[in-house]
Every structure is written in C-alpha cells, then in structure tokens.
C-alpha cells in the first residue's frame, strides 16, 4: 500500500535529529512538523524572517504581522527570533539551516531538482527555493513518485527548468525512500508497505540501484 501524504510526512520526520534548524517547504513538508518525535527539539525557520515557528494561532491570536513563507498566519514558540529577509537568507546561504524539506516536480539521478517553472504555463517565480537548494547541506524531497498522468518524476535528467544542480540527497515518495548516490542513481533504501521492488522499478525512469533485501518503511 502506497504511503499517503501523512505517511510521507511521518517517514520524513524520522530523519530529523535533535538540535536541528529546519526549513519546511509548502505542502507535504509543512505536515512534517506535526510528526516530530517527542524529545526531539528542533527550530523551524521561515524564510520571511522567523526562527521558531509555532502552531497556527487561535482566533484570538491571529496577527496579520506574523505569517510564514506560505503566507499563513502562525505563532511563535518561546525562544523565537525575528529578522529581515537579508538576514534570513544569510542564514540559509551560510549553511546555518541544517535541513531543508521541499516538494519537487522532478528529480534527476544526479540530484538535480526541477520545481519552479513549467514553460508555456504560468510562471510564478522561484521564491526562496533556489537559495535553499543551493545552500543546504541536507535536502530531502517529499513528492509523489509519478505525476498525475502516470509519468515517473525520478528521471535520468530533468525535463523542466531546474531549480538546482546536484543538490538532492534523499527522496521520500508514496512508493519508496531513496538516496541519490554520488556516482549517480537512486539507491532504494526502503519501500512502502506492500509495494514491491518491481513496482518501484517500473515507476522510476532514472537508474534505480537495488542492493540485497529492501526493507519496508516503518511508520
């Protein structure tokens, strides 16, 4: 059974270590915040100028001057800090954010990511995604293994304009957990419960590396 969005978020949450500063993208990555294990202390960064994102506000707490990068109203945890966009991206570019989790339209077997533009369709802009993928040491992509029309999103090469080159280290999809290896290729680390290696192979256009027995995701 393939993982649903919650399942993907739960699996990614297992990658989170105590003391990490983390930037979560819009969509599934945002859900990850809900599944961080007890006893693990992390700080969530919002690139519009906040360290220490808290839960959504109650009706009474809503403050138009306090939003996250998805323009949603948020709150602050104790120990938060506010700063400018220049300072925020100084943090990102300077490698101070330990982990970035974001969505993608395509990932290549060399770790390229395409996520910001579909030529001919509306171009909304890259926002902070290009800065994040160019800078973070550790980037995890959360996405569906195939597009809505069934095409693999794990490719030999990206077909869409890329957001960053050779930057993705790990991918968690509805079907599998994969590592992009330095020599190129998606190494299959785990498969979704009940999903066979063959199914994953079929859904992966890029080079899939399977070594020994591949265990199932535990969430």
């Amino acid at each position, binding site marked *: 059974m393939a993982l649903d969005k919650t399942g993907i978020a739960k699996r990614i949450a297992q990658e989170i270590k105590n003391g990490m500063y983390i930037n979560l993208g819009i969509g599934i990555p945002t859900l990850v915040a809900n599944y961080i294990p007890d006893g693990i202390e992390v700080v969530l960064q919002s690139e519009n100028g906040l360290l220490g994102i808290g839960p959504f506000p109650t009706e009474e707490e809503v403050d138009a001057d306090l939003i996250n990068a998805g*323009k949603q109203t948020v709150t602050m945890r104790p120990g938060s800090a506010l700063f400018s966009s*220049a300072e925020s991206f100084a943090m990102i570019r300077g490698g101070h954010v330990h982990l970035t989790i974001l969505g993608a339209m395509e990932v290549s077997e060399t770790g390229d990511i395409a996520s910001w533009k579909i030529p001919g369709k509306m171009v909304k802009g890259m926002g902070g995604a290009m800065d994040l993928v160019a800078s973070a040491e550790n980037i995890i992509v959360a996405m569906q293994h195939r597009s809505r029309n069934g095409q693999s999103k794990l490719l030999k090469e990206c077909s869409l304009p890329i957001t960053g080159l050779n930057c993705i280290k790990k991918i968690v999809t509805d079907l599998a957990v994969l590592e992009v290896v330095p020599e190129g290729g998606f190494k299959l680390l785990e498969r979704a419960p009940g999903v066979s290696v063959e199914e994953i192979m079929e859904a992966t256009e890029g080079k899939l590396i399977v070594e020994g027995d591949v265990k199932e995701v535990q969430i």
Partner: protein
Amino acid sequence: MIDKTVKGADEALQDIQDNAVIMLGGFGLCGIPENSIQALLRKGVKGLTCISNNAGVDDFGIGLLLQTRQVKKMISSYVGENAEFERQLLSGELEVDLVPQGTLAERIRAGGAGIPAFFTPTGVGTEVAEGKEVREFEGKQYLMESWLKADFALVKAWKGDTAGNLIYKGTARNFNPMMAAAGKITIAEVEELIPAGELDPNEIHTPGIYVQRIFEGKGYEKRIEQRTIRS
C-alpha cells in the same frame, strides 16, 4: 535631531515622476506600504519599475497598480496569486524579472551598502545564471550578482520617530530594512510616529540615516492572505 516628518503620503510622494524605479517593502501583503501605494494610485505616475518580493493580489497591494497599468516592469521572486498580473505578462504589457528571493534580498542590501557585486551559489546551473559570470571558490561554483538601487524606496514600519528611526513588527520586517537603505529617497510610513528620543536606540531596526521622509499612515487594512486557525 533632524525632523523628517511630512504630513502624509501625498506630500511624501509629490516628486515621484513617470518611469521611476521604486522599491516597495513587504512579503505577500505583510508589511506593505499601504498608504504610499494609495498615493501612487492618486498621483497616477506611469511606467514604474517596481522592485518588490511579490506583486500583491488582484485587488490589494501592488495588484492595484497593475490594474491601473502604472507598472512597466516588476522585479520580484514570486508573483503568483494574481490574475491581472498573469494576463499582462502573457500579453506582453508587463516585463518581469524573476530573481531568487535570497539573491533579491542581498542585491538590495548591496545597493544600500555600496557593494556593486557579490557572489552567491544560488542559481548556478539554472536559467538564472544565463549571461552571468560563474566563478569557483573553495571548490564550489558561484554566480556574480549586482546591486539594486531605487529612486524611491517605500517602506512600512510599526513605530518610527521624527528622526526617521524605524522599528518593524513580527514578520512585517522582511524586505523593508534593506529597501530603506537602497532608496535615493526613502519614504517611511509608520503606524505610530513618535518624537525623536522616545525609541530605545538599542531596539532600532532601521537607523534614521536611511530615511528622508516619514509620516504616520492611516487606515491600515493589513489584509491576511491565508487565515489559518488552530481548532
């Protein structure tokens, strides 16, 4: 201390001309100079180049200036959420220069800080790198990016004093401090204008040296784009 107070947005913006390059603070609709945008609408200047992280929504923020066709070019990182913008872009009425958000913030900071160019890893190997110098430092590739400056910077703060010192609130700070420094003439609108000497010098986000004109804004709507509530 030098008093930089003006009566309101119309007086502050009286010498903006057609084809001016302007910066507008804000991230989404958070921290935008609402009063100055209204004054631009009233004044009707055209051919503006607007440097702003976003382009507002159809009926608020910079979206209003798009409706009246006062904008020739946008320099932004993200311009979704705006149907009129999309129409003008596809029809060729509007030029758009998309810049990664961190690069945009740093280019504006460089403009204020007298740094004509700097190197960033952002955008290497992407469309953004086209025509730009790439150079390797310590085994990694970087792009050269240049400063951004403006004829007028329109910023919004929470509190300000008559000497032009500004304090922002929450995430409404965003692009405002860098823009305040990068404008030849910086116009600050504040929710509360107080006499010089009443702000703690240690808590000031934008020192008054960057601000040429300041006024207390009126009727802030502070529209929320994504009102998300916890149950």
